């Protein structure tokens, strides 16, 4: 067990104002264990009464060294670790990793796999926004919204479990396509979800959107302008609530997103309420995409048949020597990637999630860097929370929608 460390004033002198050194303002630790910090986030608050003079985030409590671990595993085995980064957007993490490998080695994905990937990623976006809404409302003392959101999220987790066997850490997407075919009852479940969900979103909106307490606590709080948002590198709903309709699904479409007709919700105020409205509208847009994708779901293979990268089906192993050799090579060694690097960004529920993958000619990634939106978005917390009160800070953290697994990796 580590001994207690004494932090001297000198270590933090450059971060806090002179008033804190003199004792005029109070330094308060909003510690890593806190119900409202959405994970293990430590904030060192310098408070003048109830007002925040500065707020210094201390992250790294959930740092598990996933990037270094991925360098020690082959590409296929490392895919399992990708779920654990942003644990609310597991399908999205799988998707960006598979897209990066496919770009690095030049692998094609069959259309049926692309459509199913889009459906699952959009359902995952809905599930992630449900957690955001539930926890954000819970922090602002609207507790029933939390329970309603998780009730709907159970339906999505059931769908994910149906196709992959796991509720959250599915690793369902593999380089070249999907792990296995979807079961026949999957489509009925997704359509059933789409049938009941619009009413549920209306219920949440009835509870919160015109609620005077919610509006009081969120309008005008944590404002950021468009220019400042770009300088802080914000992406996703944080940026779109300040104006620009920057959505990677529209500007740099991947996995067939250009075929679907959907809007990118934006707002101009840039405060917590604006971000709430943007994410509520994203529920509707995601449902639109899933409906269109289900209607145009083509038949065909669900994974590429390039045997150098994709294992052959087990039925072939008994009859084909090449299939057996490919299976053997892929399982013992893995597939090699060229000595090049790629960077692939996708639109996660939090913003731009990108993978920088560099190969070295061998079967293991030489460097796999995850550009995670929570890490970059959290940086602006100090800037946008100056002058607000501690209760507003809780609303602001909820609106940034951070996931500490994403922040710390």
């Amino acid at each position, binding site marked *: 067990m580590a001994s207690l*460390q004494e932090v001297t004033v000198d*270590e933090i002198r*450059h*971060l806090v104002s002179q008033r804190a050194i003199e004792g005029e303002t109070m330094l308060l630790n909003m510690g890593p264990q806190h119900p409202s910090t959405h994970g293990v986030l430590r904030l060192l608050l310098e408070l003048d009464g109830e007002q925040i003079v500065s707020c210094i985030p201390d*992250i*790294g409590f959930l*740092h598990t*060294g996933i*990037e*270094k*671990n991925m360098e*020690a595993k082959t590409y296929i085995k490392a895919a399992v670790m990708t779920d654990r980064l942003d644990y609310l957007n597991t399908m999205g993490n799988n998707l960006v990793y598979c897209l990066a490998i496919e*770009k*690095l080695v*030049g692998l094609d994905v069959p259309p049926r796999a692309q459509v199913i990937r889009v459906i699952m990623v959009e359902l995952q976006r809905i599930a992630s926004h449900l957690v955001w809404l539930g926890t954000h409302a819970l922090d602002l003392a609207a507790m029933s919204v939390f329970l309603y959101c998780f009730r709907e999220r159970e339906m999505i987790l059931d769908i994910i479990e149906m196709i992959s066997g796991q509720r959250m850490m599915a690793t369902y997407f593999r380089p070249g396509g999907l792990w296995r075919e979807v079961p026949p009852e999957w489509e009925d479940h997704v359509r059933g979800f789409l049938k009941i969900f619009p009413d549920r979103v209306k219920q949440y909106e009835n509870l919160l959107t015109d609620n005077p307490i919610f509006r009081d606590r969120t309008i005008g709080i944590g404002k950021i302008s468009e220019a400042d948002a*770009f*300088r*802080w*590198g*914000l*992406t996703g709903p944080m940026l779109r609530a300040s104006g*620009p309709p*920057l959505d990677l699904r529209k*500007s*740099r479409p991947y996995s067939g997103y250009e075929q679907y007709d959907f809007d990118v919700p934006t707002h101009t105020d840039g405060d917590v309420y604006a971000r709430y409205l943007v994410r509520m509208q994203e529920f509707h847009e995601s449902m639109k995409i899933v409906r269109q994708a289900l209607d145009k779901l083509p038949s065909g293979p669900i994974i590429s048949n390039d045997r150098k990268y994709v294992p052959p089906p087990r039925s072939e192993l008994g009859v084909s020597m090449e299939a057996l050799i490919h299976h053997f090579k892929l399982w013992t060694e893995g597939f090699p990637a060229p000595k*090049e*690097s*790629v*960077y692939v*960004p996708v639109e996660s529920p939090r913003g*731009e999630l*990108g993978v*920088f993958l*560099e190969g070295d000619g061998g079967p293991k990634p*030489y*460097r796999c*860097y995850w*550009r995670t939106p929570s*890490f*970059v978005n*959290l*940086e602006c917390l100090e800037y946008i929370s100056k002058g607000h009160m501690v209760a507003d800070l809780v609303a602001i953290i909820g609106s940034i929608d951070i996931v500490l697994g994403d922040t*710390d*990796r």
Partner: protein
Amino acid sequence: MTDEHAHQTIEALQGAFGGETGEYAGDPRLVLPADQILAAAAALRNQHGFEYLSGLTAVDYWPAQDPRFHLVYHFSSYRHNSRVEIRVPIAEDVEVVSITPEYWSANWQERELFDLFGIRFTGHPDLRRILMPHDWEGHPLRKDYPLGYEEVQFTFNREEIAARKPRPSE
């Protein structure tokens, strides 16, 4: 869908700051010397319309010593829907100028590089560890830093591993 603006920007930057260009899978990149990066970042933001820094990372090529690291900057433009990659090769113990005056989001990104790789940045307002504990020694993402794992305790080595484990105090 080729990124014309990115190609033009890379050529303009090469004309202004030197360096060599490259490309893979449709994404152009420029390898710049380390002393040019702040000026290049300023040019990208002010002239070419690259409003935000998408990502900043490093690759460690140990045991190669010169250069040991490649800093990789990804700048993105919303206006032109474009993205460029800039690589800066540096040797160990070379300090790179920080681009936080131009791109505020580089603050935490450069702190992460200092923490995990040991790359120092001059002019950074707050260069200290961000992900590792503040008194950690070593830079974990370097290639000469061990991965570190726990040895599995089977029956044949159970006693030797148990002897090394910390025991609860009586």
